């Protein structure tokens, strides 16, 4: 099957009063990588859902090889050679790679019986041909995230996809896995496959794509050949103005330790050690970043430091008070603020108002309530100023938290956690999945807290964030701190090697990378 030339022409899609796509046009010639960039909510996902038959456009047309087509469902899109790699993988964990790839188009013997041997051979051959190494007999739950993504790509190729849509494919990968993915994508393009790369990491666009289309507020803000544009220009189109760089941090000596961890061991849900013998201290006026591939103990470390699960061994002190084994409330009372990694489950109650969310956990404070009663109107009045200060939109104390965008929800949590006079701040993935404006706001707030003399522990899987904010960086690998460094002394590639346990302990200088500039997140 040859690769079709796909054109989206004048696509408009509305959700009620909201125009998610406003007369968007996108050209996909065969054998090209077309990057689709824009902030969250700019309309990238809507456009791709229209292209993949998950949504119907209100206006506009999809043209494949000069013919007008309508994709009633994803199957129709697949029949025209389109395939999608979802950001949240659509894989069945308990099944094997071969079963996942062939699901819905199983290799069959007679009477509806499966032919697992045939499926494994076919998937192995497909994987070989496209240089996507993966064991067809392995169960998905045993695979790394990078390998799972290869299975998703194989799924599309098995169905004859010649146009691949990849939705934020690098968000969950280590820098090394990103390199591997890019090599695979380049090889596919060399075979004539065309690729739509949805991303907000502009360095990736520069490294990989030949064309770029920038969406802003549902409209095409610009479209160009990548060679003719710059990261700065794309960033400007994305946000509508030139983003100011983060302010130069003040250099000041950190003060007394406010968050101390000594010989900490934390068990996971299966009672296996997830954090092993971890010791560190975060001092006043210091941001310490914890880098690591997700699943290397960050989650358990955060839960333990927040007082949500007791350590199996070791001690935690907040502002000098020993709190290990105590409740989350006692951790807070000792001076801890916590921006949790999952804003909808741990950070907010989506069905409660902004004012109520702002006092969660503070109900014992006399200015907020007496006995079982909350303050009512005074609460709403008191919250209005804070909503404005933290730029939560809309700043309406009675609005439901669940109705806010991700960025505004995260600012709401910051407004609650950073205004209680805490001494130590635990910020877990504080900008995950939020728009650039909110990222910038939260970064500035965290730096301001640092400058005000608080101790900030930043856990993030975004290395650009770790490098931009941290005074010191600790790398967590298989539950241990395997490396300590500073942003000035390292880069993403070196950190990535430590994060995957592949670095030697001597820190020998790395050979220069061949060819492409190197992918980094963010714009700073």
């Amino acid at each position: 099957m040859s690769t079709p030339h796909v054109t989206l022409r004048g696509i408009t899609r509305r959700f009620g009063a909201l125009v998610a796509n406003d007369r968007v046009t996108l050209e996909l010639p065969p054998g090209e990588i077309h990057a689709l960039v824009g902030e969250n909510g700019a309309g990238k996902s809507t456009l791709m859902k229209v292209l993949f038959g998950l949504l119907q456009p209100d206006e506009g047309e999809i043209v494949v090889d000069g013919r007008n087509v309508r994709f009633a469902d994803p199957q129709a899109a697949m029949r025209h050679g389109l395939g999608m790699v979802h950001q949240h993988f659509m894989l069945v964990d308990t099944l094997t790679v071969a079963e996942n790839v062939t699901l819905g188009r199983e290799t069959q013997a007679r009477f509806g019986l499966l032919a697992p041997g045939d499926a494994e051979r076919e998937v192995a051959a497909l994987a070989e041909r496209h240089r996507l190494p993966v064991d067809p007999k392995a169960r998905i739950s045993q695979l790394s995230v990078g390998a799972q993504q290869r299975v998703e790509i194989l799924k599309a190729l098995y169905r004859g996809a010649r146009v691949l849509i990849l939705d934020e494919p690098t968000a969950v990968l280590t820098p090394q896995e990103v390199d591997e993915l890019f090599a695979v994508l380049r090889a596919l393009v060399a075979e004539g496959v065309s690729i739509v790369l949805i991303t907000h990491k502009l360095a990736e666009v520069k490294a990989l794509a030949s064309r770029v289309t920038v969406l802003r507020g549902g409209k095409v803000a610009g479209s160009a050949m990548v060679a003719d544009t710059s990261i700065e220009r794309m960033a400007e189109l994305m946000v509508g103005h030139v983003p100011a760089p983060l302010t130069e941090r003040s250099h000041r000596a950190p003060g007394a330790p406010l968050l101390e961890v000594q010989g900490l061991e934390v068990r996971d849900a299966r009672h296996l050690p997830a954090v092993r013998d971890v010791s560190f201290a975060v001092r006043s006026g210091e941001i310490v970043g914890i880098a690591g591939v997700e699943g290397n103990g960050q989650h358990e470390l955060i839960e333990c430091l927040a007082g949500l699960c007791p350590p199996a061994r070791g001690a935690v002190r907040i502002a000098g008070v020993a709190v290990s084994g105590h409740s989350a409330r006692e951790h807070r009372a000792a001076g801890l603020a916590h921006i949790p990694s999952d804003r909808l489950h741990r950070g907010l109650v989506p069905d409660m108002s902004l004012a109520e969310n702002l006092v969660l956990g503070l109900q014992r404070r006399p200015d907020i309530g007496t006995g079982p009663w909350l303050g009512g109107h005074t609460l709403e009045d008191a919250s209005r100023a804070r909503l404005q200060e933290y730029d939560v939109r809309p700043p309406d104390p009675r609005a439901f938290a669940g109705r806010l965008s991700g960025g505004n929800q995260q600012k709401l949590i910051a407004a609650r956690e950073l205004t209680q006079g805490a001494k130590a701040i635990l910020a877990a993935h504080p900008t995950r999945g939020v728009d650039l404006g909110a990222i910038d706001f939260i970064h500035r707030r965290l730096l301001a807290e640092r400058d005000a003399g608080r101790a900030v522990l930043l856990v993030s899987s975004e290395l650009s964030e770790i490098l931009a904010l941290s005074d010191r960086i600790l790398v967590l690998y298989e539950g241990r701190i395997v490396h300590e460094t500073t942003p000035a002394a390292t880069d993403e590639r070196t950190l990535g090697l430590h994060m995957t346990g592949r670095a030697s302990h001597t820190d020998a200088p790395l050979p220069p990378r061949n060819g492409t500039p190197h992918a980094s997140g963010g714009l700073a």
Partner: protein
Amino acid sequence: MDVLLFAAAAVRISVPYALAAMGASLSERGGVVCIALEGLMLNGALAYTLGAHATQNPWIGVLCALLAGLATAWLHAEATVRFRADQITTGLGINLLAAGLTRFVLVRVFHSSSNSPRVPGLPEWRIPGVADLPGVGELLSSPLVLITLALVVLVHGLLFRTVFGLRLRSIGERPEAAATLGISVARYRFAGVLLCGLMAGLAGAYLSSEQHSFTDGMTGGRGYIALAAMIVGKWNPVGAAAACLLFGAAEALQIKLQGSAFPSELLQALPYVITMLALAGFIGRAVAPRAVGTPYDPES
């Protein structure tokens, strides 16, 4: 021969459990909780009695039981799959409905609130050489015992060796993944629940065929024990059948010990104790299909 007789009694007791538990494994592997087993069995048992009574042909009774199981399961599927109702609530509703409906029919048709008149049971299938085996010959001449033994193999094969089974399992784990590949979540979930209805209906037929009558509330909680067996068997048909055999042996032992000093309540509690141990992770890990109990909403 005492051991063989005891084993035969255990198997005899475990047949209805095994049929219902294997049916439930199909329903739950597709993502629909089947706490309605009790009601499905009860309706099946009554339908067998009505059919066998009206025609004096026990096989017509079996056919009626299958249809009753199917119809009751269809109600469960319609509510939980099409209208995305809570699966536990719907299942409990079906159990209550069946308890009331069967008593109502019992009174209206047989003018008794406790039991039906005697109806014919299934005739023996005497297999030469097998029927005369000491101890187990009689057992292995019972059609539904033989059918159940065959179904253990067939249902396991259906779930793990066929295209249907693979798709059903994928839908119980990750329905949105199957849906993006063009597999109809609703159709497969319906199929799983309906197959469960057929098997639970057959279990009901076995109960009233063995007893040659229907008595009010005759399932006596067997549906819940079968559900427990399915959990202990880790949602595998073979495992579920094996757990049923264990529960059947406990029940046979309890009957044997009746009148002795040993407190039979302890043995009666055994299925539930084992189930709790299994759920708590002491007997391997019992992990439910990930999407079980969650209605699939393609919009979200």
